[in-house]
């Protein structure tokens, strides 16, 4: 039996009868062998690189030459590095600007789709489409949309008598533009997930509510929302993890002239998210050791916020 190429399953040959009675894993080796491919691949392409990046973060390395032991100096620098702290702030602001409108819109969309509409599948497809569009293509389009003189957004603002905003030239404008892009991309995806959650809610609950005389708003807050909590939790955690790792959106949206670094994040580093900063340190400055330390910093931040999210949603449920 060959499980995968190049990874013949390491199995104990059946022992002669004189062997001691089999216990634990020996009895079930074939089960372990069956699940081993994933673990092997995860070990080779997940765990070992992760371990290596930890090892790397304790060194100075330019990516080619010899590694110098640096101990914890990279981490010491990380904690005093104002640029890194700024990038955390930037990421969180963009994440908040993107996630809350997105969850709200996704919820509304899902509830609307869940009520009896025709062409349900066509709508689902349409809402899901942004998610499978290439981020790079999207960012180029959004660059046009947020353009100062000929952008769609400013055209709309002027149509209702407001002033133009130099979106891609002001720190807040850049953040809003990136957040809008992310919202646009993920709303449909999360709406589909909410929709799946909505469809698990038994219909007789709604019927009972109707008989008791609850209005649509009451029904939503008293029945739909509480029962959707697991789904909401899932969506929040996933959005946190993806949102805090945003990279391509600012990178492509703020791509400037050829003789400027693309990883600066625009004026005042307004769009330099954590991962963009990691990328700049590693691949622009060839500072691989520090880049690895930044990556671990990002890891800690993401874990921290996932836990906070989890707690918040859990706590709300217990009340």
């Amino acid at each position: 039996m060959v499980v995968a190429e190049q990874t013949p399953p390491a199995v104990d040959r059946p022992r002669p009868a004189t062997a001691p009675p089999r216990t634990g894993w020996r009895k079930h080796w074939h089960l372990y062998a069956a699940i081993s491919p994933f673990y092997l691949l995860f070990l080779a392409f997940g765990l070992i690189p992760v371990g290596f990046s930890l090892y790397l973060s304790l060194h100075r390395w330019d990516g080619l030459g010899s590694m110098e032991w640096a101990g914890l100096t990279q981490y010491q620098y990380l904690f005093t590095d104002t640029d890194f702290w700024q990038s955390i702030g930037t990421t969180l602001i963009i994440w908040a600007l993107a996630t809350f409108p997105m969850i709200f819109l996704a919820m509304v969309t899902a509830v609307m789709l869940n009520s009896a509409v025709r062409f349900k599948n066509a709508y689902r497809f349409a809402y899901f489409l942004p998610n499978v569009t290439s981020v790079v293509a999207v960012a180029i389009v959004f660059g046009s949309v947020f353009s100062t003189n000929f952008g769609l957004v400013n055209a709309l603002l002027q149509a209702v008598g407001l002033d133009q905003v130099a979106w891609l030239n002001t720190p807040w404008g850049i953040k809003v533009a990136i957040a809008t892009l992310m919202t646009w991309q993920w709303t449909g995806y999360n709406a589909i997930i909410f929709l799946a959650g909505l469809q698990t809610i038994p219909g007789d609950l709604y019927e009972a509510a109707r008989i008791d005389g609850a209005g649509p708003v009451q029904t939503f807050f008293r029945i739909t929302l509480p029962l959707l909590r697991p789904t909401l939790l899932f969506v929040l955690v996933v959005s946190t993890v993806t949102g805090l790792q945003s990279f391509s959106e600012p990178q492509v949206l703020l791509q400037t002239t050829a003789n400027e670094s693309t990883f600066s994040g625009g004026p005042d580093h307004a769009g330099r998210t954590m991962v963009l900063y990691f990328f700049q340190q590693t691949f622009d400055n060839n500072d691989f050791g520090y880049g690895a330390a930044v990556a671990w910093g990002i890891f800690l931040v993401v874990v921290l916020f996932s836990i906070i999210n989890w707690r918040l949603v859990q706590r709300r449920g217990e009340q």
Partner: protein
Amino acid sequence: MRLSRRGLLRAGLAGTAATALGGLASGCAVPTGSTGRNMVLWYWSGGLSDTVVKKAKARYGGSVDLDAIQIGGYYRSKLITTLAGRAHIPDIAGLRGEDMASYLPNADQFVDLRTLGAEKLKDRYLDWKWQQAVAPDGSLIGLPIDVGPVVHYYQPAVYERGGLPHEAADVSRELDTWEKFFAAGERLKKRLPGTYILTDVVSVFEMSIGQGTTRFVDEDRHFIGDGPHVRACWDRAVEAKRRGIVSDIVAGTPDSISATEKGTLPSQLNASWAAGDLKLAYPKTKGRWRVADCPGGPSNVGGSFLAITKACREPERAFEIISWMLDARNQAQGFVDAGLFPSTPASYGMPKLREPDPFFGGQITMDVFGPAAEKIPVAFNSPYDIALGQPIRDEIKNVGVLGKDPAKAWEDAMGKCRRIAKHLGVTF
């Protein structure tokens, strides 16, 4: 059914341990570099002339199978990953000009071309470009593919309406210093409101740095970005902002495309390869451009090299191939095919390169590019240059785009440089 986490972990670990022994113990030999007839060349899209690559394959096909691969995406990180992994290393590798500083300290990854007789070819190439491939220990790690002399692209019709010189020779002569160029920008803005001679302040800073012989870090790993030469470039960029001759349009947006086509952004200070970008981005403006000398003297942006890696088993043959691919005739072909400006002065006189260019109104652009390429100053480019130049670039951008107070911006830039220098072990 509830799965206990501990049980799951235990199972996972046991499974992993059991299978890891079998899976990872088979240490396999991975080929490095060429094997026999096969020779691999890595470059990127547009990095070499397709015609020359094809010809090289045919020419050397009798003895080697030259396999030229275009590597997409972030080229340098893929190359150093491969070099660090010590497997499947190409025999010949293109090295981008902006990455040279980071390759030089690791010259031991490449064959010293002096050992293959490169000195004999030294006269073929521009001396300053040749120097860019010389490592601190004196070894030569690559032969130049191309260079990127910076020129002043402009739309003569707009300059004429603005009361400026508009014939290429006149522009080169009368706008030969930054001061005259700025004054012209003011006149242009007064005559044609809404027209800006500069697209951004960063380019003024960048080109000014390139016109000097020192950058941000010297050979002794000492930070010199606080020196008078950098300060002069900074002040010049601030000056451009103060005089209000810099547009606030973001490059690459529909705004900038429209402004360029309308003529409200009639000029660009940019490298030779930007001519190709102009032709691609603004086909409608064909015939409405000319090139003149860059104010303040020539500088360079970009320009790449071909190197032979240590993994190559037949360096002599590889050297034969690259020295043929990068001779004057083939570099001329590179200019025709891919806009790669030759690093071999002998190419500049070839009829192929002296043809009038209809996009530039029939101008023979080589008359501007050629002399600029030959006069570019040599500057030491430290591997720490990018990291320590970036804060200064970022802050000049803040001055230009956000109107930050220049004195405060300079102070912030220096503060950041001091911190980064300390972290990188560069003396301040």
